[in-house]
């Protein structure tokens, strides 16, 4: 029983990493209707920016806010400069452009800050929470910040005119343009916001996995898995999916005898695919209705 609880908490702690990334993934999906393979590298780059500011003697929160603002602007710039010219290209070509962006960010971060791993500070401290060895204060803080971001985004998309305009631009660009929404800028805004969410995720993840240019590869993939499991059309579902991936991974590694430890990732992914068999649009997602 204690082992189960321990693994469950460890799973939630890992899951918080995936959930933070899954939220950024869904954010961009809402705006541009496909996944951004360079998302993790953008988050990594933002985290390096924050690290650099801390190295220059800025306090943590100044660096935090600075990195979020810079990432927001950077996200908009990437959309305006790199992706606007190929907006009408086939989806697969845009996908290759994401892969290109991935290579550019990863390799330049390696060149600027090199590949040695760096520690990144946490504002929450890393003592065990409530004096028990189940979960640290940083992990609890990470879960809290992820949930807070989720609530903020929910109210932004449900409650504000800008949020509504962004949803309209993503759902039906032509009609949105006809009612006077500047669809192009809504896309750019979506990029900016997802870069900002990614920056927060990166800065929360970095104290756990350490800061280096390749830190995001695994995280992003399991963030994707979480987002898809929860349903790409639902931010809340994506966060839940992220936690679920973490928990499944840990429980499979502990409780499935013989194959569990070596193949725990495989088992987690197979379980996710099995869930998708039953709910092909994700657990919390809506099925897309198509017109014949």
């Amino acid at each position, binding site marked *: 029983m204690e082992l189960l609880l321990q693994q469950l908490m460890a799973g939630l702690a890992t899951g918080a990493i995936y959930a933070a990334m899954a939220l950024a993934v869904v954010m961009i999906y809402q705006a541009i209707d*496909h*996944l951004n393979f360079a998302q993790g590298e953008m988050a990594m780059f933002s985290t390096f920016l924050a690290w650099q500011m801390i190295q220059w003697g800025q306090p943590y929160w100044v660096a935090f806010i600075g990195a979020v603002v810079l990432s927001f602007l950077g996200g908009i710039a990437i959309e305006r400069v*790199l992706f606007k*010219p*190929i907006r*009408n*290209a*086939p989806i*697969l*070509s845009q*996908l*290759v*452009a994401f*892969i*290109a*962006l*991935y*290579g*550019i960010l*990863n*390799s*330049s971060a*390696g*060149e600027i800050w090199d590949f040695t791993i760096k520690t990144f500070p946490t504002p929450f401290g890393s003592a065990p929470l409530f004096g028990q060895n189940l979960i640290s204060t940083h992990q609890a803080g990470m879960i809290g910040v992820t949930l807070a971001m989720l609530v903020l985004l929910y109210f932004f998309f449900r409650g504000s005119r800008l949020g509504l305009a962004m949803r309209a631009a993503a759902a039906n660009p032509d009609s949105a343009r006809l009612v006077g929404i500047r669809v192009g800028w809504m896309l750019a805004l979506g990029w900016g916001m997802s870069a900002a969410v990614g920056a927060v995720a990166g800065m929360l993840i970095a104290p756990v996995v350490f800061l280096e240019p390749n830190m995001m590869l695994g995280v992003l*993939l399991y963030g*994707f*898995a979480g987002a*898809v499991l929860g349903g*790409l059309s639902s931010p809340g579902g994506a966060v839940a999916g992220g936690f679920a991936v973490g928990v499944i991974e840990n429980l499979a590694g502990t409780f499935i005898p013989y*194959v569990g430890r*070596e*193949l725990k*990732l*495989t088992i987690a*992914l*197979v379980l*996710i*695919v099995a869930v*998708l*068999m039953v709910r*092909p*649009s*994700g657990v919390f997602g809506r099925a897309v209705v*198509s017109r*014949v």
Partner: protein
Amino acid sequence: MTMPPHESAVLTREPPRAPPIARPSPRHFTIGAAIVAALLLPLLTTSFVTFQLTLVMIYGLAILGLNLLTGFNGQFSLGHSAFYGIGAYTAAILMDQADLAYYWTLPCAGLLCFVVGFLFGLPALRLQGLYLALATFALATAMPQILKFHPLEPLTGGVQGIAILKPDPPPGVPLSADQWLYYFTLAVLLVMLAGAANLVKSRTGRAIMAIRDHPLAAAAMGINTALYKTLTFGVSALYTGVAGALGAIAVQFVAPDSFTFLLSVSLLVGLVIGGVASIPGSLVGGLFVLFVPNIAESISRGLAGAVYGVILLLVIYVMPAGAAGLARLITARLASIRSIRSEGRST
């Protein structure tokens, strides 16, 4: 001028149809010239270049497999590294443990991959777009872990992988091992290219493409979408698996970490650069996948990834529909120029 009798006979019997034996078109000349060039190349270059060109053909074949699924059938896959890996390991294990001749490993690898692909296509029926991408991604992630899996080590060699010997040319053939492998690969490639071209042109091929263009409408027209989608998955895996087997024979070595998700990404990049739903484009994709990372590395060692990314972006800007799209654009322009000229002459 009098017409030869057999031609007039054909014309009178079925006037609107083309004669049964098609006259060689410019397309046939291009294909013929490409084959002649491919036959001469290894005689003119060093053995290292020959080896690289062999790999280009192998990647091209793997990309062709992906193209059948993604380009022609519209099913997205990030899992083709797994099929490539299964093909490679099948060849290596059969050569290493069963002492099978290298050429027998290809049908075995193809058959096994067909079965695995077909079976994987069954659950994939329920999934579309990104959800299918995730399912195939799971396959790509699982493969290296399964190959490293401890209980399978006697068969797969675990983390160490398997080393195999490069096949010698048959006795009496005055070719080096590299050249022989090149011609062997070329022969396999040509057969499989012809197979793919025929498949795409056939009734089955039209059904496959109808499913891509509108699955519901295709089903309404009486196409068994489930059957065709799973069969396409199987055939696609077969192509990539044969490429994997050839790849293992060419590099004489297989190891789990050669067949990760990154290989799937490379194949996808090759597919897009060559041209989605283009059979010759797949070979252009093979060229890109093999040579461009090396070029990027030679420009800047530290920033190789960035240079590669910039090249990719430039290529996408210049030809958003890949090399095949660019070729189509050029032929269309040439044809319109020609028609304008001939109109000018007739008036």
